[in-house]
């Protein structure tokens, strides 16, 4: 049975912590002891200049400790990061200032910021970036890996437990680096497939007047230049795909809960909510705002 990556790391950290703690305690102990015991008593101590045998002994001990950790490190690296020769990612994540785009290779699902994966399956992530360098990191689910424009990096994502896991971009990427957080939702195979099916459904139509008014505003007010509302269409990937926007529990990279109130505040003045964000301020009239909020929060 193979250990999940995070356990390997934790075990290594434990070993390291023990050794480091012992070294630290020894240092503090000897400093304390020497300063107390050899406090100035007015006499001139023996002028000895060291002990070569002792030093060589210490070097040998240090080399032994280092070798031990080197072997552990190499083994750990090998089991965490062994990528097949011609990798084909199951899930591609593309970093943007300041949101995450996710594309599922097999089903073609396209979503943002909330990433669903099935439990107990190893998923090969392909990471890259559309603008500056970002870094993928879900502390509870393993390593971090930089997302670099013009380069594709691969890593495994795996979880034994169902649940929601929080992560964050961990390479400084500009004004809203702090609010580039991500949520990974680990669910059973069935739930995951159901979610995928839901995401693949065509955009919703409704006879609701306010809904259609909202849709009209969305199209007229050039929202579509950046945000796609067609399933899996990736031509306009400046902003997140909004086809199933309302199926996400949070928006703005996990900054706000996805409800009408927050959505309204955001649409009214994006810079007020998340200063530096790339969304322009459209100054919608009240009526349009109402319709738009209604429309977006019904895009299940």
């Amino acid at each position, binding site marked *: 049975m193979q250990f999940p990556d995070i356990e390997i790391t934790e075990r290594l950290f434990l070993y390291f912590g023990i050794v480091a703690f012992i070294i630290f305690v020894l240092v503090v102990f000897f400093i304390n002891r*020497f300063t107390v015991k*050899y406090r100035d008593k007015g006499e001139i101590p023996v002028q000895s200049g060291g002990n070569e045998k002792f*030093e060589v002994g210490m070097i040998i001990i*240090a080399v032994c400790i280092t070798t031990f950790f080197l072997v552990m490190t190499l083994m750990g690296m090998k089991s965490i990061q062994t990528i097949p020769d011609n990798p084909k990612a199951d899930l591609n994540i593309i970093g943007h200032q300041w949101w995450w785009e996710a594309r599922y290779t097999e089903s073609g699902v396209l979503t943002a910021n909330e990433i669903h994966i099935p439990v107990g399956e190893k998923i090969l992530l392909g990471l890259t970036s559309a603008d500056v360098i970002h870094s993928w990191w879900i502390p509870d689910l393993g390593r*971090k890996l930089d997302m670099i424009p013009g380069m594709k990096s691969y890593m495994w994502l795996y979880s034994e437990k169902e649940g929601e896991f929080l992560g964050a971009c961990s390479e*400084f990427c500009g004004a809203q*680096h702090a609010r580039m957080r991500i949520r990974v939702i680990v669910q059973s195979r069935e739930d995951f497939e159901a979610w995928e099916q839901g995401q693949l459904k065509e955009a919703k139509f409704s006879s609701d007047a306010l809904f259609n008014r909202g849709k009209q505003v969305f199209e007229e007010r050039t929202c579509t230049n950046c945000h796609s509302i067609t399933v899996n269409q990736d031509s306009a990937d400046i902003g997140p795909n909004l086809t199933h926007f309302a199926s996400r529990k949070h928006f703005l990279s996990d900054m706000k809960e996805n409800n009408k109130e927050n959505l309204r505040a955001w649409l009214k003045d994006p810079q007020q909510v998340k200063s530096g964000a790339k969304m322009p301020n459209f100054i919608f009239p009240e009526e349009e705002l109402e319709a738009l909020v209604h429309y977006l929060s019904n895009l299940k």
Partner: protein
Amino acid sequence: MYLWLALFFFIIGGLEAMVLRAQLALPNNELISPETYNQLFTMHGTTMIFLVLMPALIGLGTYLIPLMIGANEMAFPRLNAFSLWMTFMGGTLLYFSFFAGGGPDAGWFNYAPLSENNYSSSHGVDYYLIGLILTGIGSIGAALNFVTTVLTLRAPDMKLNMLPLFVWMMFINGFLILAAFPLLNAGLFMMLIDRQFDAHFFIPSSGGSAILWQHFFWAFGHPEVYILALPAFGIISEVIPVFSRKPIFGYKFVASSTVAIALLAFGVWVHHMFAVGMSNTVNGFFAASSMLIGIPTGIKVINWIGTMYKGSIRMTVSMMFALAFLIDFTIGGLSGASFAIVPIDWQLTDTYYVVAHIHYVFLGGTAFGIFAGIFYWFPKITGRHLSEKLGKWHLWLFVFGFNMTFLLQHMLGILGMPRRIYTYPDLPYWKILNLISSIGAIFMFVAIGIFLYNIFITLKKPRSAEDNPWEAWTLEWSTPSPPNLKNFEQLPPIHSRRPLWDLNNPDNPDKRLN
């Protein structure tokens, strides 16, 4: 002059840090905007490294190297002045950016492509580039001066293997600077060309490489860590023996481990880039080299502790700072070693764990070393003793505040707080840990206030220091305090590493080396 410059920028950098900690004291705080925050942390890092620690160490070196080797002046006095004013100009330009539309906002590491025109449109980064090029030229000039002075102006009897450790380390450091800073300046120029003349060395969308900048920066950046650490090691290697009344334990090992560090320093930089996504082969070898460089550093710590063994220890403020250095630098060194263990690095790099680590190295290491050095050499430089009583207040408040601020940041990193974020969500424990951390910063702030006050009142007192108040052994203590304009009229005989010891203890001299 260098020291005043360093002190001035230290106050500015410290104030920036206070604002940063104030912003981070509470979750979802909006005290300052993210843009301001980014400029401030960029400037804080840049200021502290290039405009505080570097000038402080170069200043001590410039003042002390001629005195310690029995020379009357640096080899190139005009180059010396030139270096100082270049550093000053660089610093001024850097700060001028605030009046020219905004400070640099891409971090002190200035990663491409975030620092390129597309993503950083204000002129801040341009000022950063030019400012650092100037200070870099200043540092190179100073290093050249150190190396030449040590090679050519030593007292006739002083052989190279008899140098005081501080001078030896500054000497090695000179070579490090000479090799590392041109790398940085090359990178900076390339980026300047990118930004001003639309080249694309570092722009991936038009065929450049974003990683290339990181290689340049860290091939400079890691030696830079040792450039800042070695002189502090040198100070500690002078202070601890003098106040233990014993020669350094294992001179050979301390001195040659310095060379080992200097040589290895150029072979470890990729450990800053383990998370970039290079292959296991590359990462594995650099893990090995990064672990190995810990060994010479560890040897030094053992030797310093060994020096105290069976000594006769005088607990002056200078010695206490040296001991605080030993303990806190050990923490910094150990947490640093954990980054060589690649899987741990994959978890913890770019988190608050790193923030804690670098502050333990630069503040707990270099800055404590500088404080120890200032308290040790202040009588020599000014002819007056700093108040020991105020010094102890300064010491305890600073050490307490320092550990309060940064020890907990290790925890924050492990809990998953990335660095360089201007605010954070209210996750379990984050709030309380950050709050304590911010309160610790206040203690440090007060401590520095006491330090400044101490310097201020001491300078007003009359000159009272003797030539050799600490009964030290190196040549600078054979001059009056403060030394005459031409340092030496006549030199004592030099036959060992401790000429003044031989002079004062003619019946028990050190082993002759010439």
